[in-house]
């Protein structure tokens, strides 16, 4: 059959193109323009060439923040994905507890980032915070404002509390879509609980888990608000992630040129990693 091509449909895409141009393309072009120039305000610019890129790539400040960010994302994925699967496996599949569990799980996701930061900042204070004072009373030395390890534990705990639910909900959606016949077949074969998980549940959850990994990776790699509110990048620069460092450079120090160069490098890393994840996801989808 001959396909009908109606090129007028392209006009329907026009509003989106205009929106993307104003919200993404034009700002990105401006950042590129800034990255090769120096400015002291007043809309006056001086050519700097690739100097800012060299400066960022030579600075240990950038590399430290990048490794910190990668380590943070790795820790987050290693905790949240298995924990999310474990919780989803233990959630009820039918009965009145299903909506209760779902609402409880969705609650942390509804809280804005800065509020989560403030909640945890108060919760972890050694003098008045429930968590902070409890841990101190139990005999542990804990102070997220002074000790780098404590600061990391706090930021990781906060992110786990805030975002594990997303993994749970996605994994749960994957689990409930498995037809009962699969479990019946497994029971007839006398399959163990582990075998059911390995050969039925995990393969069926694969697609949603890949989305969960992608979302959690991108979010944790671009994390800003929560650690900014709780630790402000400190103590010292122990929780100074790329985005916090970037804002400090651009808004705090008004170094727009180096900040623009750093934004572009950051953007390219995010783009590369997103492409790798996307490719892995679509390739494994095609094989499935």
């Amino acid at each position, binding site marked *: 059959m001959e396909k009908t091509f109606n090129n007028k449909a392209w006009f329907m895409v026009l509003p989106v193109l205009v929106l993307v141009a104003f919200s993404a393309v*034009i700002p990105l*072009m*401006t950042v*590129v*323009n*800034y990255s*090769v*120039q120096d*400015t002291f305000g007043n*809309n006056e*610019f001086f*050519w700097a060439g*690739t100097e800012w*890129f*060299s400066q960022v*790539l*030579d600075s240990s400040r950038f590399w430290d923040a990048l490794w910190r960010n990668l380590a943070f994302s790795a820790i987050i994925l290693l905790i949240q994905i298995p924990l999310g699967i474990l919780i989803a496996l233990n959630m009820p599949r039918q009965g009145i507890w299903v909506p209760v569990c779902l609402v409880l799980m969705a609650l942390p996701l509804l809280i804005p980032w800065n509020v989560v930061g403030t909640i945890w900042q108060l919760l972890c204070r050694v003098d008045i915070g429930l968590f902070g004072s409890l841990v101190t009373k139990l005999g542990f030395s804990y102070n997220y404002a002074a000790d780098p390890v404590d600061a990391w534990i706090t930021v990781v705990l906060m992110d786990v509390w805030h975002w594990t639910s997303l993994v749970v909900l996605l994994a749960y959606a994957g689990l409930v879509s498995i037809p009962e016949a699969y479990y019946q077949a497994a029971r007839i074969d006398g399959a163990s609980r582990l075998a059911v998980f390995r050969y039925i549940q995990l393969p069926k959850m694969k697609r949603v888990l890949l989305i969960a990994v992608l979302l959690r990776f991108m979010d944790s790699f671009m994390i800003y608000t929560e650690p900014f509110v709780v630790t402000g990048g400190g103590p010292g620069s122990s929780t100074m992630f790329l985005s916090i460092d970037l804002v400090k450079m651009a808004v705090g120090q008004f170094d727009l040129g180096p900040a623009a160069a750093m934004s572009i*490098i950051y953007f*390219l890393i995010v*783009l*590369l990693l997103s*492409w790798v994840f996307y*490719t892995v996801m679509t*390739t494994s989808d*095609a094989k499935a």
Partner: protein
Amino acid sequence: MDFSWMAWTLPTAAFFLTILGLLVAMAVWEYASPGGNPRVGVLRIETTRGDRLFITLLGSAFIHLGFLGFVDVDLWWATVASLVWAVFVFRFV
């Protein structure tokens, strides 16, 4: 409309015009031979012409950054390396 707040320079304008030119060229190529010529190359993933352009551009960006950060030679060599990379990608990926 005044776009002076975007702080345009001749090199960056040339850079974006090159990208635009590449996109237009890809559109013309697609019009001349539709379908995007999908194939599985050395990366063992299916790529179309557009994917190959994306891989080329992203790779070129990292080649330039790599030359800036780790190699002490003129940046034009990075551009030469990127062209070699482009030929490799369009031929084998």
